[in-house]
C-alpha cells in the first residue's frame, strides 16, 4: 500500500470529465442519463455522489469505472483519454487503475476470501501464484480480515464480506476505489465499520475514493458531496465534516 501522497499540481487529476453525455435508446425514445457532466476529482479526494434514483449517478459510476463509454464528451483517467479505447483496453484499465466495491459485495460464492481477493491479479497478469497469494493476504490484512483467509463468503458476516470486497479493490494497488452503495445491504454497525475502513484508506493510504450513495449520513462521512438530478450535477460542495474542520469554503452550484 502506498503512503499518503498529497495531491500536487504536477499530477493530473484522477478523474476529469468534460461535458460528458450518455444516451440510451429505450424503445423509440432516447434517454439522456448523463447530460453534459463536467467533474474533476483530484488525488486523495473522498467524494460522495448522491441523488435520487435515475438521476444518472450509476451511469456516471459505470463511466468512471470504464464499464461504459460516454456518447459524447471527454473522459481522462489519470491524465489518459479513455473515451475512445477498445473493450480490451478498458478491461486492462479496470484491472490496473481502479477497484470496484459493490452494494451486494459480488464475491464469487464458491471461492474463499483469499481467492476472491486474488481474482483481479489473475487477470492483470505478471504475478506468480505465490506472490499473488502474498499480495492478496496483505490486502486482507489491511482490512482486518487476516484471520479469515480461507472462509467462503457464506461463512462471513455482511460487513466482513464487504471488507473482502474492499480488499479485492485494493489488491492491485490502484489509486482509485469506486464504491456503489457500499453500505446498502448492511446494518448500522457494519456500515460504520465499512465507512471507517474507507475513510482510513483515504486518510492513511491516500486512496482516491468515490462513493455512490442515497444515504446522507454516508455522504456526510466523505469530504465532498456531488448531487445529481436528471443527469446533471445540481450541487458540488464540501461535506459538513470538512466544513466543521474549516478546511475549504463552500461552493454551491445553482441550476435553474
Amino acid at each position, binding site marked *: 500500500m502506498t503512503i499518503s501522497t498529497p495531491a500536487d499540481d504536477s499530477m493530473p487529476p484522477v478523474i476529469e470529465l468534460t461535458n460528458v453525455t450518455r444516451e440510451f435508446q429505450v424503445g423509440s425514445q432516447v434517454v439522456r442519463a448523463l447530460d453534459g457532466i463536467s467533474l474533476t476529482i483530484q488525488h486523495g479526494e473522498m467524494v460522495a455522489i448522491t441523488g435520487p434514483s435515475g438521476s444518472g449517478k450509476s451511469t456516471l459510476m*459505470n463511466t468512471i*469505472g470504464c*464499464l*461504459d463509454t460516454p456518447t459524447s464528451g471527454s473522459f481522462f483517467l489519470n491524465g489518459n483519454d479513455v473515451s475512445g479505447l477498445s*473493450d*480490451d483496453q478498458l*478491461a*486492462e484499465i*479496470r*484491472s*490496473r487503475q481502479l*477497484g*470496484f466495491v*459493490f452494494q451486494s459485495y*459480488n*464475491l*464469487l460464492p*464458491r*471461492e474463499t476470501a483469499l481467492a476472491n481477493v486474488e*481474482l*483481479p491479479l*489473475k*487477470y*492483470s*497478469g505478471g504475478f506468480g501464484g505465490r506472490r499473488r497469494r502474498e499480495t492478496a493476504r496483505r490486502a486482507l490484512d489491511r482490512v482486518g480480515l487476516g484471520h479469515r483467509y480461507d472462509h467462503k463468503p457464506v461463512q462471513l458476516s455482511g460487513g466482513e464480506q464487504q471488507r473482502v470486497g474492499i480488499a*479485492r479493490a485494493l489488491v*492491485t494497488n490502484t489509486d482509485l476505489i469506486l464504491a456503489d452503495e457500499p453500505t446498502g445491504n448492511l446494518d448500522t454497525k457494519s456500515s460504520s465499520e465499512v465507512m471507517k475502513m474507507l475513510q482510513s484508506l483515504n486518510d492513511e493510504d491516500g486512496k482516491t475514493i468515490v462513493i455512490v450513495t442515497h444515504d446522507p449520513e454516508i455522504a456526510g462521512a466523505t469530504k465532498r458531496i456531488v448531487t445529481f438530478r436528471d443527469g446533471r450535477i445540481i450541487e458540488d460542495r464540501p461535506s459538513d465534516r470538512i466544513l466543521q474542520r474549516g478546511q475549504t469554503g463552500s461552493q454551491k452550484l445553482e441550476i435553474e
Partner: protein
Amino acid sequence: MGFGLLFATALGSLGSNKLRASLTLLGIVIGVSSVIAMMAVGRGAQVSVTARISELGTELITVRPGAQALRFAFFGGGGSSDVLSFSDALALEDDVFAPDVRFVAPENSFSGTATVGRENTFLNGVGITAEYLEARNLEIALGRNISNADVLNSSLVVVLGSETSESLFGQRDPVGAIMKIQGREFTVIGVLESQQGTIFNPDNSLLVPITTTHYRLNNGGGPIESMPVSSINVLARDEKAVDDARTEISTVLRLRHKLGPDDEDDFSITTQQDTIETLEGTQGTFVILLGSIAGISLLVGGIGVMNIMLVSVTERTREIGIRRAVGAKRRDILLQFVTEAVLMTFAGGVLGVAAGWAIAYFGDGATIAGDVIETVIETNIAFLALGVSVAVGLFFGIYPAIRAASLDPIEALRHE
C-alpha cells in the same frame, strides 16, 4: 490469464457441480466408447476375413462363367449361361498355352436333400475332382478323398464336411455308411477336417465326384467334355505367377470360346487378391457405417455439452459480470468457458477410450448369435477418438462461450 490458471479455474467450476459435469461427461464417454468398440469389431471382422481368404492360398484363381461384376460373382455364384465346360477346365492345364498354371480343379455346385435313416436334411454340395482338396487347402480327417476313378465312373460316393457328418451321423464314424442324396444311395468314403471358419466353410457341405453331380443328380447328358461346370479353381505355379496365369487363362478361354477382339469375356477371373480387395472394401464400408452410427451418439453427447454450457452461462451471468468488472477481457471469459467444455469432452474421451478398449478387449472371442466376435483395437483410432472428443468440446463449447464473452458487464452485474 495463463493456461495453468485457466485450467485451474475451469476445473474449479466443473468441480462445483460434480453431478452435472459427470452426467454431461457420460454422454461423451458413451459416444467415444461405442466408436472405439464398433471400430474394433469392424476391423476385427475385416482382419479375420482377410486372414481366412489368405489361408486358402494366394495362388488360387477362380474362373466363373458369365461376365459378371466381381461382387455378384462372389456372392451370387455363377450365372445361368453354361459357357464353362469340363473341357475348358482341362484345356487350362496346358504347358504351352498356360505354363503358369499348376493344376485345375473344376467344380459343380448343387443342392439337394440328404437322407440318413428317416431324417431328411437340405444341403449344399459340390461336385469335384480329386484336385479340389489341394486347391482349397482342405484335408481329409477320416477315410479317403474322391479319386479320379470315382470321377470317371460317376461313382455314388460322398465325402462329408465335419459338421455335416456330425449332424447326419452324430459321433459315429460314417465311413462306409450308406446315405441318400436326392433319393440315390451313396457310400460315405471320407470326412473333411474341420475348418472353423465362416468364409468358404466346407464344414456344412458335402463333396461328390463332379460327374456324379451332372449325370446322376442333375440328370444331365452328353459327353464328359461338354459337361458344364459352375466354376474352375486354378492354382498358379506360385504367388508371383498369378497375374501371368490370369492372362493365360483369359487367352485360352477366349480362343476356345471363339471371341473376337471386340467381344467381351464371357467368363470372369477372380484372384484371391481381388477377393480380398473387394471384401476389404465392403468391410471398410461396414466399418465406416458402424463408426458413423457410434459417431451419432458422440454428436448427441456434444449437444449435451452445449446444452449444459448454455445453462451454465445463464446461471453464472453474475460471475461473468464480476470477472469482467475486475479486469477480465472478453477473451478471458471465452477461454474459460471453452476450456470447461473441452475439459469435459477430453475427460469423457479418455474415459470413453478406456471403456471402449475394455469392451473390445473382453469382447474378443465372445460368441454372439453363434458368430465368434473378433476385435482389433487400433491405437490410431483411439487417438483419433480423443482428438474428435476435443474437437466436439471446441465445436459445441464455442457458441456458449461466445455468448458468455459478449455479455455486457453492466447488465451481467445486475443479473440476479
